[in-house]
C-alpha cells in the first residue's frame, strides 16, 4: 500500500507538525528555494516549506554549533542547513535496503514543526526574559533548548528525522565533510570525488590546524 501511505502522509504532515508545538502556529506557506546542497528533485511535487525564521535559527546556531567555527563558519553551516531544508522533499522514496522487497519513504515534512519551534522559542524568551532569543546569552539559550533537545536521544542521525530544529541543525553540520575534517584536523573530504592518485597518502592537515597548513 505504498501509494496510499504516501498520500496520507503528504496530506497530514502540516497538521501533525504544527500540533507538535502547542500554541505555536507555523508561518504558513512560504517560498522554498529550488537550489540545495543536495541536488534538484526530479519529479518533485512542489511541496513548499514553511521558511525557518532566519534570525532565530542563527541564534540557535550560536548555541549549538562549535564556537571554533567562528562567526563565518557558523553562518556557512546555518546557510547550508537552510539550503538543505529548502531542498527537502517529504515522503520521498528512499534507497532500497538490501534484499527488502517493500518500498520505503521518508517521513512527513518536518519544516512546519521546526518553524513553529523557532517561533515558540521567541515567544518563550519574550515571556521569560523580555528579549529576543538572539539577545540572551548562549548559556540561557542552551537552558531553553535543553528540554526539547534532551528528548532527542543520544545520537545525531539523519537531520530530517530530528524532532527538534536544534538537533537537525547539529546533525546536519556534524555529519558533514566539513565537520569530519575539523574533527580530525585533516582533509579527508569524505564523499568527494578525487581520482585514484595519492590514495595511499595520509590526509593532509587542514590549513591552520595543529601540524600546520598543507
Amino acid at each position, binding site marked *: 500500500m*505504498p*501509494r496510499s501511505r504516501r498520500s496520507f502522509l503528504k496530506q497530514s504532515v502540516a497538521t501533525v507538525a504544527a500540533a507538535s508545538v502547542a500554541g505555536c502556529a507555523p508561518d504558513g506557506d512560504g517560498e522554498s528555494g529550488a537550489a540545495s*546542497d*543536495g*541536488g*534538484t*528533485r*526530479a*519529479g518533485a511535487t512542489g511541496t513548499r516549506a514553511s521558511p525557518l525564521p532566519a534570525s532565530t535559527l542563527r541564534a540557535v546556531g550560536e*548555541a*549549538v*554549533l*562549535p*564556537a571554533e567555527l567562528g562567526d563565518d563558519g557558523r553562518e556557512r553551516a546555518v546557510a547550508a542547513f537552510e539550503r*538543505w531544508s529548502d*531542498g527537502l*522533499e517529504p515522503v*520521498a*522514496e*528512499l*534507497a*532500497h535496503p538490501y*534484499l*527488502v*522487497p*517493500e*518500498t520505503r519513504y*521518508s517521513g512527513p515534512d518536518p519544516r512546519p514543526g521546526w518553524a513553529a519551534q523557532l517561533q515558540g522559542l521567541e515567544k518563550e524568551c519574550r515571556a521569560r526574559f523580555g528579549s529576543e532569543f538572539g539577545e540572551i546569552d548562549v548559556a540561557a539559550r*542552551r537552558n531553553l533548548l*535543553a528540554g526539547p*533537545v*534532551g528528548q*532527542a*536521544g*543520544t*545520537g*545525531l542521525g*539523519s537531520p*530530517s528525522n530530528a524532532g527538534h530544529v536544534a538537533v537537525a541543525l*547539529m546533525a546536519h553540520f*556534524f*555529519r558533514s565533510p566539513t*565537520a*569530519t575534517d*575539523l*574533527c*580530525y584536523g*585533516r582533509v*579527508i*573530504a*569524505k*564523499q568527494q*570525488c*578525487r*581520482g*585514484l592518485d595519492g*590514495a*595511499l*597518502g595520509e*590526509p593532509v592537515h587542514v590549513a591552520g590546524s595543529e601540524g600546520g597548513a598543507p
Partner: protein
Amino acid sequence: MSRVIESDVCIIGAGITAAMVAERLAERTNASITIIEAGQRTASLAERTNTRARMLAYGENPYPNDHIPDQTGTGNMYRQMVVGGSAMHWGGAIPRYSPEDFRIRSLYGVGCDWPISFDDIEPYYQEAEERIGAAGEQGPEDCDPRSKPYPMPPLPLSYNLARMREWTDSAGIPFWTQPWARNTEPYRGRNVCQRCDTCAVCPTGAKYTPDFAFDQLLAQGRIDLVTRTLVRRLALEPGTDRIAAAEAVNRDAPTEPIEFRAGTFVLAGGHAWSSHLLLLSANSRFPDGLANRTGNVGRYMTGHWYVSGFIDLPMRLYPGIFANNSLLTHRFASPGPLDRYVRHDIRLWESDVGRVPRLRNGDGGLLWGDEVMADWRERTDSGATARIRSYYDVLPDRDSRLTLDGANTNALGDPMPRIDYRPAQASLDLEDHTHNTIFGRFEHLARAAGGSMMSRRTSRLWEHPGGGCRMGDDPATSVVDRWGRTHDHENLFVVGAPTIVSSGCANGTLTFCALSLMAAEEIGNGLGGG
C-alpha cells in the same frame, strides 16, 4: 488478437546476466535477439550526479522508477525491476567462488557437488571479468586461482587500508583487496574510478552497470530491448515440450497482449522471477509448472549467512577516505582438510562506528557545540574502528522454497512469489561450530593489532541469493543441466543465480555471469556460433 514479435533468441529480464548472454550472442552469431524487461530505464549516467547528491543529502533512491509497485513478492528478494536489474545498485564486488565450492560433497561430505568444476567455469570467470571490467589483485595462488591476470590493476589501497593491511600481515593471515567491477583504467569507453565512495550510484561511470552493455548493443543494432512489458507465462508448441512463445502485456496497455516468438528462450530474471515465471506457466502438460516434471522448480533456494563485528584498533585512521574498498581473504574458503566443516571468507573495511559525533557523552550529559567536537575528538584520537564480516557457506534444504502466493497478486491477478528459505539440517548442526570458529579468528585478528572486539553479531539474512532452478546432471534432483538448459524443454535456458547449487562464501554476481556465459556458448553453438 495478440501482437507478435519474432526473433531467434528471446531473453526475459534485462539484468546483468541478460547483458552477458546478449553480448556474447551478438558478437558470435547473427541471431536476432529480443530482450523483454518488465521495468523501464532509470537514471542515466548523466543524471546520476544529481541523484547521488539527493541520496547523500536525503537518503533518496538514486534510481527513480526502478521497480513496479504491484510486482513484489514476500521474503528476502530484491526490489528492483528495471533495465540493468539489481546490478544498477550493486557495489561491484566480483570475487570468484573457490574451487571447493563446486565439490563440497566430495571433499567434506556435506551438501552437493555441482555438475561442473572450478576448472570448467574458470574460462568463463575470466570472460565475465573482461566483459565487466574487473580490477583486482592476485591473491595467493592456493586460495585465489586464476589462469590469466585481471583485466585491470586493483584499486589502490587507501591510507586506512594500507595501515590495516600491515595489521593483518602481523596476524599471519593473507589479505588482499576485493576485486571490483570498477575501472582503474579507461575501459570500454568508461571512466576511471574517482573514489566518490558512493558506489551504489557511481556518478562517473567507472562502475559497471548493465545499461552500458545494452546501450552499446542498441547502438550497434544488435538487440531489441522491449521495456515496460511483463511476461506472464510461457506457452508450449502444441503437442511438444518446446517453448513457442512468451505471452506478455505492455504495462501501459494491459488489455493488448503481445506474443514473443523465438527459437530459443532464456530466463534471466534473477533468483526470484525466473522460477516464478516457470511456476506461473503451468499447463495441462506440465501441471506443476514448466521445467518442473520432477518438482524441483523453486526448491533449494540458497544464499549465505554472515557473522560480523567491529574491532577497536589502537591506530590513527581517517574514516571517510574510501569506505567502499575492502580487504579480503579466501584463506578459510580454501581451508584444506577439515575435522569439521566450516568455510568462510573474511573482509575488512574502515569504519567510524563508535566514533561519530553524538549528542550525549558516556555519562548521559547533553553536549553542545565545542563539547560535541571535543567528545568526538577524544574518541577518534584514542583509536580507530575496523568493520569485519565473514560470509559462510549455508547449505539449502530441498524445502527452501519459492512458491506462488495466492494471497498476494499483482494488478493482473497473477500470484506473486513467496520465498521461505530453509537451511539443511547439516548447516543447522554446524551453526555454533561455524560461529565459534569465525569469532575465534576475529579475536585473533583483534589481538594481533593489540585491539579488541567492540561488538559482534550473527545474521541469517540469505545474502547473494540464488537457487530455484539448480543445475545438475540428474533431472530427478535438478532443473537445468550444466549449460543452463532445462531438462524438460530443449529450447529453454535459465541463466545466472537460479541455477547455482549453493552460494559458497563469496558474492555471487561474477559466478552468475560466468554461468550465463556458459549458457550463451551452448545457445550459440545451436545457432552456428559459440
